[in-house]
């Protein structure tokens, strides 16, 4: 069932006017799952991949699980109210699809120990509250390798939403991947300071192209704004989460995709078995959460072979993109030779590697 905020509000209203009626009893053997996402669930993008994850639950459990999608829910008090309402309606497994739902979700988790809650991109944990995220940087490193092989100007670009560690990490790995193929590569970044503003994103892409950038990383845009602009201008582009190849049939570099199904399945299984334990899950290629696909056929064969080799090394854990020596923008050594950055250092990254020409906003 798909609900948007408005129809949901309507049903809430209808429910509250029918107070005299008994609360609907839910059959014991049906698990009610709710997914709350901040943007409208479309055919592409972040919300879409989460929705696909819940589809896997439906596919596995059939009638035993009922998934409710609550889309376009703004972060804030409204979201708290809606998640409490869905909990009161019988949802015991809740997936919160945005960072901003953290405090409200945590409060709900504490008052409802019978519920299990998954929370995207957060950092707080409770016995029945697990934050989860994807190691996008593993994929963007590989994209960097491909980009370096295709660029003629040796200038790559990135349209970024907000300068937060998750996005900075992706850009740094992208840069390091490119430099592993060609050390002379430079990367320019334009922050649009918005999760959602297609017109600005498109202008940012054009601004990069006008400065000679010929491969663009669409970092955390949920619409094809950047990909579409790149195709029109004849430069390569890639994005995160779900493939946008149909929007750029000739110039699509590839996608760093995410598949939440294994994690959701495993979490629901634990919930049903009563063994759900709150823990931070930063999912990787090894867990089949992060993957790369839809590679552009223009990428030369020797680079493809190298990418496949690196991909296998990342997946097996033999290689991490953040292995020293790594120099920062100021030319100082940030990671010593042979040292691999720990997760906490990657999760709080607030510096750019050498080769990123744009200063990081403080």
């Amino acid at each position: 069932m798909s609900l948007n905020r408005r129809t949901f509000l309507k049903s809430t209203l209808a429910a509250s006017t029918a107070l005299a009626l008994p609360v609907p009893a839910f059959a014991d053997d049906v698990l009610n799952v709710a997914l709350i996402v901040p943007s409208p669930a479309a055919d592409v993008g972040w919300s879409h991949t989460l929705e696909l994850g819940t589809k896997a639950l439906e596919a596995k459990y059939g009638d035993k699980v009922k998934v409710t999608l609550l889309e376009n829910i703004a972060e804030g008090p409204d979201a708290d109210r809606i998640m409490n309402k869905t909990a009161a309606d019988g949802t015991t497994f809740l997936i919160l699809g945005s960072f901003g739902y953290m405090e409200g979700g945590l409060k709900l988790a504490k008052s409802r120990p019978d519920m299990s809650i998954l929370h995207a991109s957060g950092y707080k944990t409770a016995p029945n509250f697990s934050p989860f995220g994807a190691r996008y940087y593993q994929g963007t490193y590989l994209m960097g390798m491909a980009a370096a092989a295709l660029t003629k100007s040796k200038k790559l670009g990135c349209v970024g939403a907000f300068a937060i560690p998750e996005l900075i990490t992706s850009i740094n790995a992208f840069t390091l991947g490119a430099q592993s193929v060609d050390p002379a590569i430079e990367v320019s970044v334009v922050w649009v300071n918005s999760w959602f503003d297609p017109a600005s994103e498109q202008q940012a892409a054009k601004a990069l192209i006008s400065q000679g950038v010929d491969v663009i990383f669409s970092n955390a845009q949920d619409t094809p704004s950047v990909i579409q602009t790149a195709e029109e201008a004849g430069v390569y582009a890639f994005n995160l989460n779900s493939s946008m190849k149909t929007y750029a049939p000739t110039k699509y570099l590839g996608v760093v995709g995410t598949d939440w199904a294994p994690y959701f399945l495993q979490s629901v299984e634990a919930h049903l078995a009563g063994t759900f334990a709150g823990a931070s899950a930063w999912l990787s290629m090894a867990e089949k959460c992060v993957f790369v696909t839809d590679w552009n056929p223009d990428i030369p064969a020797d680079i493809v072979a190298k990418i496949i080799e690196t991909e296998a090394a990342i997946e097996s854990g033999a290689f991490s993109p953040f292995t020293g020596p790594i120099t920062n923008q100021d030319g100082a050594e940030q990671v010593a030779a042979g040292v691999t950055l720990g997760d906490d250092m990657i999760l709080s990254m607030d510096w750019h590697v050498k080769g990123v020409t744009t200063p990081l906003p403080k």
Partner: protein
Amino acid sequence: MTILAFILAGTLAAATPLLLAALGELIAERAGVLNLGLEGMMALGAAVGFVVAYTTHSHVLGFAAASVAGIALSLVFATLALGFMANQVAAGLAIGVLGLGLSSLIGKPLESQTLDAPGKLAIPVLADLPVIGPLFEQDVVVYLTFGLAVVIWAVLNHSKLGLIIRAVGENPHAARAIGFRVLRIRLAAVAFGGAMAGMAGAYASTIYTPLWADGMIAGRGWIAVALVVFGTWAAGRIVFGALLFGALSLGGLIAQAAGVALPSQLLASLPYAVTIVMLAVISSNRRRMRLNTVASLGQPFAG
């Protein structure tokens, strides 16, 4: 595409949706009606324009439908503000929210779909000029919008119709006393504003960024409202403000891409700050300001 070409060509296109909406609002405000629902009317126009252009493969039909949608929503506003003499600020805000809600409902089935943008039209000779050539390689709506700005300026300042609109806005009682039907003229001005806002939305969703995404207007309706006020209800200054805003927002992105050591947040807020300051300075002549301000703006009129 060079950096200069990007700024020159990009500025006109970036200013176009703002200008379309602001020119419509200018007429409404000159007639004495403050319609703050611009953002909602633009969003509705964007959704309807996109859906129609997507299904019929015709941008012209998309624009036509968007202007009809804008008029329809502005008439709801007019019913409240002119018919029932409701507070114009409150009614406008309500219409804005309604428009945003309707736009996400209407656009829902086509979320994240894209369209082909119509081609650019290069003006012979002018487009071949060195340096400023890129200014003359735009889509047809850009030319029409800037042409329309001239027409609106001429109508407001040099025609009988303009005098009537201004009379109704300055002193509706006097206008009424000499036989003008104040409410009808205001209704027409509001409807014109709605049509323009609808088309501004359609430009954003079918030409400028040819895709539908809920919330894509992202505050541009409010910028248009601000342009009218800070441009002190003069068409020329509104055009200047829209161009300045467009140029600065592109300039900020260029500066970031070029690695200028300024925080991106500052660069992003520059267009707003500079546009307001510039327009405030230009309009700082007190006497002219008093002359330009629409005397009965926002006041209900009992017909």
